[in-house]
């Protein structure tokens, strides 16, 4: 482990040097295995925020209050510590720079992480495919990668829209509320553009959003790819 950076009050990003890492596609994840001195082990999956070749990778981890692994990664892990990782994993929830369909990204909380890898891949590859990100967060201070997203949103090919569920910025025109059909419809492409979608977040969020999206009839059901990370 090389470096960590605070992302939100409960989350931080973690830079890892992984000798032999073969590179990864945007959207892939890895498994982290922790082993206690008495042999007890715990394995959890984390999405990779970084993309491409190179042995330096970035994760971003939100601390779950009753978690076993995430509190360790967020609070205990120090530079120089070793972690056991397995990956890159998954070939389904991924975006390739050669893909040509417009992309709707919808993130709930730390579900931004694999979508950030897609946004970074889109930027570094020079892709001009239109990307829309709809990002649901509790409050402005819960935004991961806030500065980077602000800078990337200058691109004509990326639009970033926030949904605040608990507390909105002072001048925000919409009262804080859970993500709605209207919010998704307002951000979506038209059906004629044949868009694809990636939705990532807590299970309840993902299932709610996926149901709304199927109902909108903008996306063919099989083009809505989801990744649920659980939660209570």
């Amino acid at each position, binding site marked *: 482990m090389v470096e960590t950076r605070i992302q939100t009050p409960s989350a931080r990003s973690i830079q890892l040097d992984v000798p032999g890492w073969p590179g990864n596609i945007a959207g892939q994840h890895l498994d982290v295995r922790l*082993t*206690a001195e*008495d042999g*007890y082990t715990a394995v959890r999956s984390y999405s990779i925020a970084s993309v491409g070749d190179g042995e330096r990778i970035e994760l971003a981890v939100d601390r779950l209050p009753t978690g076993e692994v995430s509190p*360790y990664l967020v609070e205990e892990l120090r530079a120089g510590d070793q972690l056991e990782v397995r990956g890159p994993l998954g070939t389904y929830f991924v975006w390739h720079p050669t893909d040509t369909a417009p992309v709707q990204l919808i993130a709930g909380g730390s579900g931004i992480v694999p979508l950030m890898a897609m946004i970074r891949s889109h930027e570094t590859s020079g892709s001009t495919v239109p990307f829309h990100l709809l990002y649901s967060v509790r409050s402005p201070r819960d935004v991961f990668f806030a500065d980077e997203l602000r800078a990337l949103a200058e691109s004509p090919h990326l639009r970033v829209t926030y949904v605040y569920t608990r507390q909105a910025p002072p001048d925000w025109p919409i009262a804080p509320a859970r993500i709605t059909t209207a919010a998704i419809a307002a951000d979506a492409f038209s059906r004629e553009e044949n868009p694809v979608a990636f939705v990532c977040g807590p299970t309840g969020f993902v299932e709610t959003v996926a149901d709304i999206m199927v109902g909108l009839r903008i996306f063919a059901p099989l083009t809505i790819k989801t990744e649920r990370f659980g939660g209570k």
Partner: protein
Amino acid sequence: MAVISRGFFGRKREENPELPPGQYLTEDFPVLSAGPTPVVDLADWTFSIQTESGEVHAWNWEQLNALPQEDIHTDIHCVTRWSKLGTTWSGVSLDTLFAGVDTTNAYVMVHSYGGYTTNMPLADLMDGKAWIATSFEGEPLDPEHGGPARLLVPHLYFWKSAKWVHGLRMVATDDPGFWEQNGYHIYGDPWLEQRYW
């Protein structure tokens, strides 16, 4: 070769003679779930015992609750390494339910609403060792913990205490149930650490 994670202790272990080997103490009640929680209307709920002759002994919710109820104070041990000491349940003893059942088969396949199964010798259900439990800590058993009724066989690992229990079938051989078919021990004694085959 495993890398020891500096500062990672996982769950707190302690030496405690009440804990079977390899277990840690928990105060909460972790929920394990292999599927959606079945919704069982008490008006439709039944529990049955089917013997090798095809005879079926069945109880509906009122009939089960009209039987003598026992309070059970026991420890429970989950194969995923948590144990919970001093829990209190109430329900009907399997001795009561088997009183009028005529069988020579020595094994039982337990069936649950939702399709779960688990197996055990009949002897492990007899002589005050097992119950159909309908309350936990004085409250009706929560659906996520197996309500309206679960089997309680606390001397075996807790996966044997089938949630949402629906019935027992008497069988001649100790055929494996849902988890037992997938590497978990056919019997599951926590004191002998019978976790896997």
